[in-house]
Each structure stands twice: as structure tokens, then as C-alpha cells.
């Protein structure tokens, strides 16, 4: 069973990389766009830190680490998660999801592996560049166990992002016109650009428990600085697993509600 799905994943990956190889110019373009994006993403940071050393206990260099994680995850999100799930929204609108549902494999697996944009990996490179610059500013290196913790957190964040996307797409089954769901999601994810302790009150609650943005960018940044408590790491792993489980249940439920629009 597992080997069959692995083989299927291989096939889908090969198909989309072949597609991407056709447009090698995209590599350069994506790189440029990614740099441009990062530049504009940094602009507010420069304005905020214009004449003060730290905000909510985060210095400029430390906040840069958060931006680095944001950029990196944006690459993961836009390169591996969004493209195929945008396809689902299209399927739902056109009523062609039936063709996917009829195939003898898990529908969620199929819809989430159909399309990758490998050139978006340039975002990951930009993120790593920001890390190097940030540590240069801080005048020290990352902590080694912290780096491993950060890698674990990268996995949990990806899982979280993916689950959040599945939840958003599930909403597409109930909302009539959904072209702008992508923008909705992006605008929420945008808040992850800032260190979580900045947010107070209601927003802090929402961003920690309902939409766990803190976990995606602030935790890994803290881990690299070597100040993330072990308790938080465990909570992140458990939390993201629970989140994935919930999104899976919701997806199955929405599929159950789906009535083809075409026939």
C-alpha cells in the first residue's frame, strides 16, 4: 500500500518537474520575484525598527530570522502546496472533481500532489541568505541543537500550512464563488512575518491557538537562537499532528457533501 503511494508520488513529481523543465526561464524570473518580494517584505521592518533597538524583546537581527523563516515557508507554500490545491478549487467550480474521486487512490493524496512549482525553491535560497545576514548582524552563530530543532519545526510548520490549506479548500465546497480564497489565506499567513510576542490580546490568542502562526515562524527562529524550551517543541509536534488529523476529518466530511455541478 505504502509503496504504491510512494510510486504514485514519484510519478506525479516527475510529471510536474518535466513540465517545469520546459520553462527554464522561470528559474530566473522566480528568483527575481522572490528577491523583489523579500525586499518589499523587509521595507516595513526597516520602518518599524527605524529608530528603536527592540520591539517586544526582539532586536532587528532576531526579527530578521523570523522574516527568513517566513520567506522560506512562503517558498514551500507557493511551490508545493498552493498550486495543486488551487487546482481543487478549479475542479469544484467546474464540477470536474468527479474524475479525481473516481480514481482508485485517496482523493486528498491525489489532489495535493498533482502540481509542484520547483522553481519556487529560490525562495528557500533567499530565506537562507536572510539567515546568514541576520546572524552576521547578531555577531554569533546559530546553536547546533537549535538547528536540528528548527528542522523538526520546518516539518511541523509544513504540515500545519498544508492542513490549513486543506481546511480552506474544504470551505470551497460550501462557498459559491471562491476565486479569492487564495488571497484570503495569503493575507492571514502574512501576519507570520512578525515575531509573535508583538501581538497582544485577542490577536495573540487567535495566532497561537486558532491559526498557529507563532508556531510556524517564531518558534523556529527562537530555536535557532537556542532559546526555545523543549516543552514548546513537543507542543508544536503534538499540536500540528492534531491539526492535521482535524483537517483530514473535515476534508472527508466536505467530500461527503460534494455534489457534482456538471451532471
Amino acid at each position: 500500500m505504502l509503496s504504491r503511494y510512494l510510486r504514485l508520488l514519484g510519478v506525479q513529481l516527475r510529471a510536474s518537474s518535466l513540465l517545469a523543465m520546459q520553462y527554464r526561464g522561470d528559474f530566473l524570473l522566480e528568483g527575481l520575484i522572490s528577491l523583489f518580494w523579500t525586499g518589499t517584505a523587509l521595507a516595513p521592518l526597516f520602518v518599524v525598527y527605524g529608530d528603536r533597538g527592540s520591539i517586544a524583546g526582539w532586536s532587528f537581527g532576531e526579527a530578521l530570522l523570523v522574516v527568513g523563516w517566513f520567506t522560506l515557508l512562503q517558498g514551500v507554500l507557493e511551490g508545493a502546496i498552493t498550486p495543486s490545491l488551487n487546482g481543487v478549487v478549479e475542479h469544484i467550480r467546474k464540477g470536474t472533481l468527479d474524475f479525481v474521486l473516481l480514481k482508485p487512490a485517496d482523493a486528498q493524496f491525489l489532489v495535493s500532489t498533482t502540481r509542484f512549482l520547483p522553481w519556487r525553491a529560490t525562495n528557500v535560497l533567499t530565506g537562507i541568505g536572510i539567515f546568514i545576514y541576520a546572524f552576521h548582524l547578531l555577531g554569533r552563530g546559530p546553536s547546533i541543537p537549535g538547528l536540528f530543532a528548527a528542522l523538526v519545526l520546518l516539518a511541523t510548520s509544513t504540515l500545519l500550512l498544508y492542513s490549513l490549506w486543506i481546511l480552506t479548500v474544504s470551505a470551497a465546497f460550501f462557498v459559491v464563488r471562491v476565486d479569492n480564497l487564495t488571497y484570503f489565506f495569503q493575507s492571514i499567513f502574512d501576519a507570520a512575518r512578525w515575531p509573535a510576542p508583538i501581538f497582544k490580546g485577542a490577536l495573540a490568542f487567535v495566532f497561537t491557538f486558532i491559526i498557529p502562526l507563532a508556531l510556524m515562524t517564531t518558534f523556529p527562529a527562537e530555536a535557532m537562537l537556542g532559546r526555545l524550551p523543549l516543552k514548546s517543541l513537543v507542543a508544536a509536534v503534538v499540536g500540528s499532528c492534531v491539526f492535521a488529523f482535524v483537517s483530514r476529518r473535515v476534508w472527508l466530511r466536505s467530500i461527503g457533501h460534494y455534489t457534482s455541478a456538471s451532471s
Partner: protein
Amino acid sequence: MSLRTAVRAFPTLLRVGVSEALAYRAELIVWVLSTTMPLIMMALWTAVAREAPIGRYGAPDFVGYFLATFVVRQLTGAWAAWQINFEVRQGTLAMRLLRPISPLWSYAAENLGAFPMRLLIAVPVTLLSLSIVGGQAVPQHWWGWPMLLVAILGGWLITFLANVAIGTMALFMESSQKLMDVWLVLFFVFSGYMYPVELFPPLLRSIADWLPFRNQIGLPVELMTNKHGLQEALLMLGRQWLWVLVMGVFAITLWRRGLRRFAAFGG
């Protein structure tokens, strides 16, 4: 396709637009939810201003500013670029071209049709802002109100015409989606949507003054929160409407040239 027929048909088109907005209210809610950035920025900037004010903005000023930003964004929204891009690629633009009135009028009517529904959100938020910030949340002088209305109309026109221009680019290139994304990022940075333009470092600030983006959000918001005197406000309104004119000529010329390239098959 004379202007007279267009003007006569416009009220009907508007009514259609309003009922369409009513029919797709769920989508409108999703859209409103996706414009929550001012609220996030509000949290951020009030945290920054807690120790000491920045420029002339203290924590309550930021609350007023960003609630006004939220309101203005609702009232100046347009999505014609996505519509045109989609209809060009699907070829359904042909249907619109069959009508005896320019499609631009019907796009405008559809986009404006959401206005009453958006007021339902904008008015309570303004009242909330009034209750938190006090009188500073709305214009203090009598002349502030008509100016605010003119500024909102100008802001909407610039947003809409930019949408038309970018959407039309789909006729020249495969898809104008990427172009729209680039426009949006510039808009977010330079419009005053994420922070008041006057907080920029001097160089960026003078760039922002010359670009069209500030006229879309920043100017109406600044007028709403009483940031300018009468003379300064008049000068800025003049600059805004100059942009409306430039964008109008540019968008319509582009549209006319683009249509010549349009060839839809099937139908």
C-alpha cells in the same frame, strides 16, 4: 455605443450589480476577511508606539488610522483585473462585446454594485472607531466631509482604472495575473495601507508621493483622520485627480488597442 446610451443604461447596470453582490454575499465576506491586514498592522504599530510616539502618531492615532484604512479599503475596492483576465482567457469576453455598450461600463457597474453591501461593514467600523478614538476618527471641519467623498471616489477610480489596465494586459500577454501580483505588492508598500506614508524614510516618502498608490488609500484615510489643513488637502486632491485623468486615458487607450487583438473561438 455613444456616451448617452451608456449614461442611460448605467442605473440599470448598477441595479444588476447590486443584486449580484447580494447573490454572492458569501464571496464578499471572504473578501472582507482577506482585508484584515490593517487590523494586524494596528496591533503591530500600537505595540511599537507603546513606549513613545512615532512622529505625530501615538497609540490611539494608530488605532484611528488603521480602522480608517480598513473602511477606505472596503469602499475603494475593485476586482476588474481578475474578471477581465479570466474572461479573456476563457473567451467569454465575446459575450460582453456583443452588447451595445462598452464592457468597461458593465465592469464598473458590477464593481460599484458591491458598494451598498460594503457600507454595511464600513459604517459600524467607523462607529467603533468613533467610540474608541473619539472625534478624531472622522473629519472635524465641514469641508472635510465633501473632500473625503471626493477622495474616496478618486481612490476608487484609480483602483478600478488600474485594474482595467492590468486586466487588459491579458490581451497582450498570456495572463496578467503575475503583473497584478506585482502591482498589489507595490500597492501594499506605497499606499499607506501598512503604515502612514509620513513614517517612511525621506527618500521612500518622496517616491510614495509621486506614485499613484498613495491616492488609493493614504489620502482618503488622512483626510478622514484630519491630518491635513485645507490648503494642503486641496493640493493633494488635485494631484489625485490628475492621476485619475492619467490612468483613465492610459487604461482606455490600452483597452481599445487590446480589443483589436482579441479573437475568441467557439463561444
